[in-house]
C-alpha cells in the first residue's frame, strides 16, 4: 500500500528545520571561506530551480525533462537585456521570470494534453528545441560561444552582497511557493497527482490546472536562471540543455519529492558532494553516479523525510 512509505507533503515539522537552515544561511558567509560562499549561492539558486520543478514532480505528479529550457530562457533574457539594452539591472532580473513564464505557457499548452511518459518526452522535445534555437542563433544569443562578461551593479561586486541578494530572493520565492502548496490550489494539485480522473468529477479542469502550475514552475525556473546568469557573469546554451535539467530532478529525488523542503535538502547534498568530489578526482561523474544510486536505493522517498522519520522515532 502506498501509505507505508508516505510522508505528508505539508509536514508541519518543516519549520523546525527551516529555522536552523535560515540562521545558518544568515551567518555562514562571515564564518566560511569565499569559495564556500560561492557554493552557498549556487545552492540557493539550484534549490529555487529544484523547488520550482518539484511543483510539477512532487505536487502534480508530472515528470518534466525539459525544465532547463525555462532556466535558460530566464538566463538569456537577463543577459540580453543587460547587454543589448540600457534598461536597469533590476528590470532584467524582473523581466526574466515573466519571459520564462510566457514560454512555459506556450510550451505547457501542448504538453499538458499528454500524461505520463508522453508528457515527459514532449517536455524534453520542447526543451531541446529551445536549446537548439539558442545554440544556432549566433547573431542574437552568441551561439555556442554564449554571452560573456555580463556586467552587474557595483553593489553586487562583493560576493557577500550578491549572496544576501540571492538569499533574499530565494527566501521570498520559497515563502510564496509554500503559500501556494498549502492553499486550495496546491492541495488540488496533489489531488490531481493522486487521481486525476476523480478530480475531474469534482469540477476541476485538470488540463487548465496543469497549465497554470506549468507556467508558475517556468516562472521560478526562469528567475533562478537569471540569478545564475548574473552569478557567473555569462550564459551558455548548456544552461538550457537536458543535462542542466537533470540536476534539479536529481536534487528533488535525493531530497524527497513529497516534502516541501526536500528539493532544498537535495540541492545542498548534491552541490556540496559535487564540490567535494570534483576537487578530488577527474572521474567525479562516476562517483556522483554511485552515490546517487545508493541514495535512491536505500533512501526511497528521499533523504530529508528519512532523517525526519528517524528523528521522530527517536523522540517516541
Amino acid at each position, binding site marked *: 500500500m502506498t501509505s507505508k512509505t508516505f510522508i505528508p507533503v505539508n509536514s508541519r515539522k518543516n519549520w523546525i528545520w527551516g529555522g536552523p537552515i535560515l540562521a545558518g544561511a544568515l551567518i555562514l558567509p562571515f564564518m566560511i571561506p569565499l569559495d564556500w560562499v560561492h557554493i552557498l549561492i549556487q545552492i540557493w539558486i539550484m534549490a529555487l530551480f529544484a523547488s520550482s520543478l518539484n511543483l510539477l514532480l512532487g505536487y502534480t505528479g508530472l515528470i518534466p525533462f525539459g525544465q532547463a529550457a525555462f532556466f535558460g530562457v530566464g538566463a538569456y533574457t537577463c543577459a540580453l537585456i543587460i547587454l543589448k539594452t540600457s534598461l536597469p539591472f533590476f528590470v532584467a532580473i524582473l523581466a526574466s521570470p515573466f519571459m520564462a513564464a510566457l514560454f512555459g505557457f506556450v510550451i505547457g499548452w501542448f504538453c499538458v494534453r499528454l500524461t505520463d511518459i508522453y508528457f515527459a518526452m514532449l517536455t524534453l522535445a520542447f526543451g531541446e528545441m529551445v536549446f537548439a534555437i539558442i545554440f544556432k542563433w549566433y547573431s542574437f544569443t552568441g551561439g555556442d560561444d554564449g554571452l560573456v562578461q555580463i556586467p552587474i551593479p557595483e553593489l553586487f561586486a562583493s560576493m557577500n552582497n550578491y549572496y544576501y541578494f540571492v538569499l533574499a530572493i530565494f527566501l521570498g520565492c520559497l515563502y510564496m511557493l509554500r503559500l501556494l502548496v498549502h492553499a486550495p490550489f496546491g492541495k488540488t494539485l496533489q489531488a490531481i497527482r493522486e487521481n486525476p480522473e476523480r478530480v475531474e468529477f469534482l*469540477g476541476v479542469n485538470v488540463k487548465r490546472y496543469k497549465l497554470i502550475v506549468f507556467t508558475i514552475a517556468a516562472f521560478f525556473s526562469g528567475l533562478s536562471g537569471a540569478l545564475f546568469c548574473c552569478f557567473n557573469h555569462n550564459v551558455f546554451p548548456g544552461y538550457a540543455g537536458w543535462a542542466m535539467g537533470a540536476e534539479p530532478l536529481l536534487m528533488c529525488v535525493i531530497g524527497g519529492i513529497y516534502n516541501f523542503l526536500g528539493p532544498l535538502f537535495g540541492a545542498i547534498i548534491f552541490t556540496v558532494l559535487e564540490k567535494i568530489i570534483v576537487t578530488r578526482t577527474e572521474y567525479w561523474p562516476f562517483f556522483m553516479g554511485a552515490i546517487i544510486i545508493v541514495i535512491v536505493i536505500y533512501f526511497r522517498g528521499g533523504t530529508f523525510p528519512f532523517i525526519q522519520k528517524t528523528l521522530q522515532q527517536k523522540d517516541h
Partner: protein
Amino acid sequence: MESRAILLKIEDLKKSFGGLTATNDVFLEIHRRELVCIIGPNGAGKTTLFNLITGLLHPDRGRIIFKNEEISKLSPHDINRRGIGRSFQRGNIFARLSIFENVQLGLLCGRGQSLNFFSPMRNMVCDETMQILAMVGLDNQCQNISGELSHGDQKRLELALAIANQPQLLLLDEPTAGMSAEETKATIPLIADLFQKHDLSIIVIEHDMDVVFSIFSRIVVMHQGGIIADGRPEEIKRNDLVQKVYFGEKKWEF
C-alpha cells in the same frame, strides 16, 4: 408540481464499443427529489450509462438533458459544475491525502474555491467538513491517511466526497460493492438519510436485492444495453420480462 420537475432527461441514447453495443434506445427521466435504483445483470450497460451521463463517455446517438440544457458533449468537469456528482464502483479517493483533506477539497471544489492560491487551506470549511465526516461516521479518524482505510470505509469516504461537492443529482455506482454485511447494513440507511436531508436526486446502481427493495421507490431494470422495465418495486417484482432475465423460467421470490 415544482418538486417533481424533470431534472435529467435521456433521449434515445446509444453507445457502442466496436461491435459491442453497450447502451441502446435508452429513454429515461429523473425528477427532482427522486431516489431511483438501476438494476440489471453484469454487462447490462448500467455503468456505461453513468459514464455517459457524467461525460466520461460521449454517446454515438441521442441526447442527455440536465436542467433543460444538453450536456451530451460536455467534459466531466463541466458536467460536474452543472450539478451532477458521482461515485465509482471501485473506491476512488485521494489515497495520500488525509480523510479530512479529501472531504475538505470536495467542499472547496464544489464552491469554486480551488483556484485560491494564497489562503491556507487548513482553516477553511473545517466545520462543514467535520459535519459531513460525522454523517458518514468517519469523523473520529479524520486525520488518518485515506489510503489506509478499509474498503468499506473508503467507499463511505467516497460517498462523503461526492456529497461535499454539493450535487443536485448524485450517481452512486454500487455503493455497497465489496462491503461486509455489517458495512452494507450501515451504508443503506446512510443513503436514505442523505436523500431525506438534502435537496437532491439520487440514482444508485445496486445488485443486492435486499437493499434494492428496502429503500427505493422506483426501480429501473436494464438488460443488454436497454431499459426493459421501469416502475415501483411491486411492479418490477411482477414483471415477467424481468423475471425471465434474472431467473429464466423460475419464479422470483422475495
